[in-house]
């Protein structure tokens, strides 16, 4: 058993060994249904609830010396603060705080919690600045400011924007929100009903509100905006409802829209100009966003932008991915369907595209290309490269040169059987013919499923280990395509799916990936999907959560689980860490299962919904962590009593 598992997750190999592995996997899958059932039972029994799962994989010596892979951590916010979801433009999610380390991480306790009163998927991370924590909830998208200086972080102000309930019926995958961003004294975030708003950080009053689209046509907004300089970059979601995907830039102070770049359509609509130089020839040509579609279908071709935008200050380029083409039934839209399931590099100021690369041409399985692009500088095959690492939904980890769009390496990081690999010369995936679904005929055992080898949950990079840490899936599906009519405001996808665990029986996995070598260093198997963001800290600790509610801290180098804590509901939020007014390091994460994790909601042991923020510190200490008695003018006595009862720092 050990040998097979080792083999499955062993390092990538030459073409021949690839084929051999595929054959082994194919035979494993072929006899796999019985085997898989046994395997599911096996881990279930063995993995007693909450026991820290053993870290599999080669706990070999720490990876290459820390110095090789680095990243630019602009805008270098103060180490104790957290101004945007990814903490920096490069999307590294690395915190320089090192107070929590392997030694004391096991003493982490709950300092305080905050329930925001909503029950849908909590995918956001809190923001912290000026000793204030800012939160954004899923629908109805209420924003809160909590005063960290006071005991129990009471609410400073809260703002309810009241988005229309129609949006509830148009949000494909739960009425979620991936968080806000702080800029120029304002908290900027998107409402589900296609509005972007800015709220004054001090007073909680609305500064501006911009309508970006018509929710009744099936468009919604769930992404976290990225603010660079005076521009706010936002995009729409609704790949399932046949929307026309775009990324727009708004002025940070007035909210006016400066420009909007569509993902499909003519070059003018997609803002492709003369200096657009895609690396691969099959993406060169005029109006490819229109000619790669049957007539008229590009206007309802999706390519929506609903996840992460990264920015490279040196080249002034922003990088983001586009969603799957619509409808999901490939037979209805012959052609490559550019620029869906692709990555764009655009000039941050003008929005003109510099280069683009399509991860899955003519996508047939709903593999969006929206996952985060972590900008790292690597030493690849002897030459220093300004690169980016992108774990795509099609289960391939792409290391790309972020200046030219060249694919340096593309290795599968999760179990997949839709492709024989990516041809690095042409950048095209080699599709397995039998894996192409035909209308009205069930195609069994397609891996990865529609939610991919990894979904939007962001990975983290640690310059100290040079590794990227990410929660991934181990799932397959039976799929049946039903050709769909386009009826505005109704789903335009047509994929009927039944998902089940891939060989190994575990639905999720948390792994460390060496971007240069293109292989998995260690991985932790989880019974449920690991759909939370990852957080890497200078203390060489990496935090992540699981869909059934475990919040774990692991050693960044060895992958050994050092600490686990069971939260109230499943974790699909993004952990973050900050420095409190008492200069103590706190780690915060939302618990509130929802979103795509609901795919396994029928499995026994799946947690109920929830909406609580947990903040941890060493020994649970927090400012005046005493009983928070009423402070009266002559309250010295009360304050003293505070001291008396408080635990020793």
């Amino acid at each position: 058993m050990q040998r097979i598992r080792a083999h499955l997750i062993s390092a990538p190999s030459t073409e021949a060994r690839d084929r051999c592995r595929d054959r082994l996997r194919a035979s494993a899958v072929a006899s796999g249904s019985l085997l898989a059932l046994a395997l599911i039972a096996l881990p279930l029994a063995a993995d007693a609830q909450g026991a820290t799962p053993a870290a599999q994989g080669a706990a070999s010596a720490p990876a290459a010396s820390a110095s090789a892979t680095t990243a630019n951590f602009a805008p270098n916010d103060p180490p104790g603060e957290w101004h945007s979801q990814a903490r920096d433009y490069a999307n590294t999610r690395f915190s320089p705080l090192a107070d929590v380390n392997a030694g004391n991480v096991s003493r982490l306790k709950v300092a305080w919690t905050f329930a925001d009163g909503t029950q849908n998927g909590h995918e956001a991370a809190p923001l912290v600045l000026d000793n204030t924590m800012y939160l954004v909830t899923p629908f109805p998208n209420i924003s809160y400011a909590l005063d960290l200086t006071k005991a129990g972080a009471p609410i400073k102000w809260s703002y309810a924007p009241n988005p229309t309930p129609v949006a509830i019926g148009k949000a494909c995958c739960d009425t979620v929100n991936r968080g806000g961003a702080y800029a120029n004294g304002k908290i900027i975030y998107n409402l589900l009903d296609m509005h972007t708003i800015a709220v004054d950080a001090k007073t909680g009053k609305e500064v501006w509100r911009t309508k970006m689209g018509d929710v009744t046509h099936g468009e919604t907004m769930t992404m976290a905006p990225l603010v660079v300089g005076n521009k706010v970059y936002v995009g729409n979601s609704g790949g399932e409802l046949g929307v026309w995907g775009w990324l727009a830039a708004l002025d940070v102070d007035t909210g006016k829209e400066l420009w909007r770049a569509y993902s499909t359509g003519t070059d003018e609509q997609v803002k492709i100009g003369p200096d657009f130089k895609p690396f691969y020839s099959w993406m060169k040509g005029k109006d490819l966003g229109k000619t790669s579609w049957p007539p008229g279908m590009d206007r309802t071709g999706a390519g929506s932008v609903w996840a992460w935008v990264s920015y490279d200050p040196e080249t002034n380029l922003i990088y983001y991915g586009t969603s799957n083409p619509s409808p999901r039934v490939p037979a209805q839209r012959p052609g490559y369907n550019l620029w869906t399931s692709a990555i764009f590099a655009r000039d941050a100021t003008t929005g003109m595209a510099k280069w683009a690369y399509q991860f899955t041409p003519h996508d047939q399985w709903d593999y969006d290309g929206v996952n985060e692009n972590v900008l790292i500088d690597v030493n690849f095959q002897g030459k220093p490269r300004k690169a980016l690492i992108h774990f795509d939904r099609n289960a391939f980890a792409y290391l790309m040169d972020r200046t030219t769009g060249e694919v340096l390496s593309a290795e599968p990081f999760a179990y997949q059987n839709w492709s024989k690999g990516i041809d690095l010369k042409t950048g095209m995936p080699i599709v397995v013919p039998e894996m192409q679904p035909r209308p009205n005929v069930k195609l069994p055992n397609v891996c990865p499923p529609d939610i991919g080898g990894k979904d939007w949950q962001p990975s983290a990079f640690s310059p100290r280990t040079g590794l990227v840490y990410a929660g991934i899936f181990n799932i397959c599906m039976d799929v049946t395509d039903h050709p769909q009519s386009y009826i505005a405001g109704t789903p335009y996808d047509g994929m009927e799916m039944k998902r089940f665990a891939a060989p190994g029986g575990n639905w999720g996995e948390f792994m460390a990936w060496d971007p240069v070598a293109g292989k998995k260093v260690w991985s932790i198997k989880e019974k449920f999907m690991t759909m939370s963001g990852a957080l890497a800290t200078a203390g060489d600790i990496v935090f992540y959560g699981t869909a059934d509610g475990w919040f774990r801290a692991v050693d960044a180098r060895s992958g050994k689980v050092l600490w686990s804590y069971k939260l109230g509901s499943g974790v699909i939020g993004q952990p973050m860490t900050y420095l409190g007014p008492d200069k103590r390091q706190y780690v915060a994460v939302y618990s509130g299962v929802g979103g795509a994790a609901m795919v396994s909601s029928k499995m026994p042991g799946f947690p109920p919904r929830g909406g609580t923020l947990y903040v941890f510190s060493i020994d649970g200490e927090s400012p005046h962590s005493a009983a928070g008695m009423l402070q009266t003018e002559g309250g010295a006595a009360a304050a003293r009593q505070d001291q008396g009862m408080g635990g020793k720092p």
Partner: protein
Amino acid sequence: MAAVLTGTDALRVPVIARPADDASIAPRLDRIWETRKGLLGTLSSVDHKTIGKRYLVTAFLFLLIGGLEAAVMRAQLARPNETLLSPEQYNQLFTMHGVTMIFLYALPVLSGFSNFLWPLMLGSRDMAFPRLNAFSYWLFLLAGIFLYVSFPIGRAPDAGWFNYVPYSSLQYNPGINIDVYALGMVLLGLSTTVGSINFVVTLIRTRAPGMSINRVPILVWGTLTASVGNLFAVPAVSLAFLMLWMDRRFGSHFFDVAGGGQPLLWQHLFWMFGHPWVYAVVLPAMGIVSDGLPTFCRRPLVGYTAVALATVTTMVLGFGVWVHHMFATGLPPISLSFFSAASFVIVIPSAVAVFAWIATIWTGRPQFTTPFLFFAGFIVVFVIGGVSGFMTAAVPVDTQLTDTYFVVAHLHYVLIGINVFPVAGGIHYWFPKFTGRMMGERLGKWSFWIMFIGFNLGFFPMHIAGLLGMPRRIYTYPSGLGWDSVNLVISIGAYVFALGVLLFVINVWRSARHGARAGENPWDAPSLEWATPSPPPAYNFAVIPTVASRYPLWEDRLTGHQGHSSTSQGMLLDNGRETIGTSALDAVPDVILRMPGDSFAPLLLSIALAIAFAGMLIHSWWLFGIAAFISAIASIAWLWPEARLGQTTEIVRDRA
């Protein structure tokens, strides 16, 4: 033929008697074999002659019902854009027309002939399994009623007799229409199978001593071949219908594309049964002609051996041609070519039969009786149907002809031509034996000519409609495609033909009451059944006849045979219901068969099975359970060993 006498009764010497000398034989045999009078006797009778007549009457009843359905369809198709019927009504009608004619008339009517005539022709007192014979009729009657049970509430099967999936699957036909058809066909399949078993064993074991295999009439060869064919073909279609019913009601995916099933599997299974079945419904009829025509040509059939072997060859090849019904389904051309070649080859045995009949007429001296007219008219219609079939055997031509009215013309020429005409002639010919009276010759000739002219006027233009591109199974057609006048002619012809059939039925009805009394052998025919009184007594033969040639009653006028057939002297076998069992090839007597008496078990078992299938139809499992239990009881009662029937008496064959 001396039998060795031993002490015990184990070896019993059958008494050789001459009925003429001992007047007490006839009444004694009568008392043994006569069925009780009244309703109880009717329901429990196992006399092959009663069952034969019931088959004939019930089959003719279904023929008339099918004819009515056809009449209504032709009224709808007489003019373009006719609105007499809604599409659903038309689809139910054309399906029930097909099902009724092919399943409830074509084979049952031939079973009627064979049940009545075989024991008489073979010189036996009854079929090998008398109770099984009764059971096959009752089950056929109940299956017929079962198939019509949903007709009055407008939910009759409506996917054609071929019932192609996926139109007949639950998604496109959610009502009980198709369940009625599927379960009804499995029930009917039971009846056909047991009937076929009965015929095969009767042929092998109960022929009169001396009647070797090359001396049996061609009707016996025809029915034997049809029965052996059914034993192999009917299971295929029963399996197909069972799989369809499970697909519809229990979520299996045999034919369901979404679940990985194959629609073409149904077509293969259906036509593997379909083609042997259409040969099964024509070979006995050709046998009727081969036995009836020589009588009216005053000479034995030309090439008896050739015709007998041709009959068998037709059925054997019949199992190898089924894909010619599927030339347009996109199967690879190479496999279509094999089946096309096989379909060409299968014409040869039929050519043998045709030229044998022509030679019999040419070298004989025809007597212009009504049966002769039917048999002669049959030959012409047979050849027209045969050659239109020959045209569809060519793949490129068939991709134009298939599913058009050309094929409708072909199938009516072969089914009416080769089944209805010989049956009409056969009824005229054996009417004296059935009822003891002759059928009216004048009305007979009128009914023949009206049927013949009406048939050709009605169905030949269908070839033209087919060539003009009119597809099958359309409830109406737009004007201006050149189909209007040809359809009007077809409708008129169909009504004339219906008039002819009506005249025939009237002739049967009147002759049964007022027809002239017929003697033993009104037509001076050669075969053994004409040596019994008209109508024959319950025991058929006072003594078991011995046969010495192919034409027992013409031995005085033909040379070239040793010894003399005799019906005046033979084994008496009056110790209860007995007949003689003989060896397979040379019919040497080797056992005295004790035959079971009248019994209610067959009727009870049929009713129980029908109720069980009704329970399955309406998914009431307690009803099914009870009925299944009763069936078990009935079967046990049926098969309960009776000392009286113990086969203890063996005749040791004389080794001299």
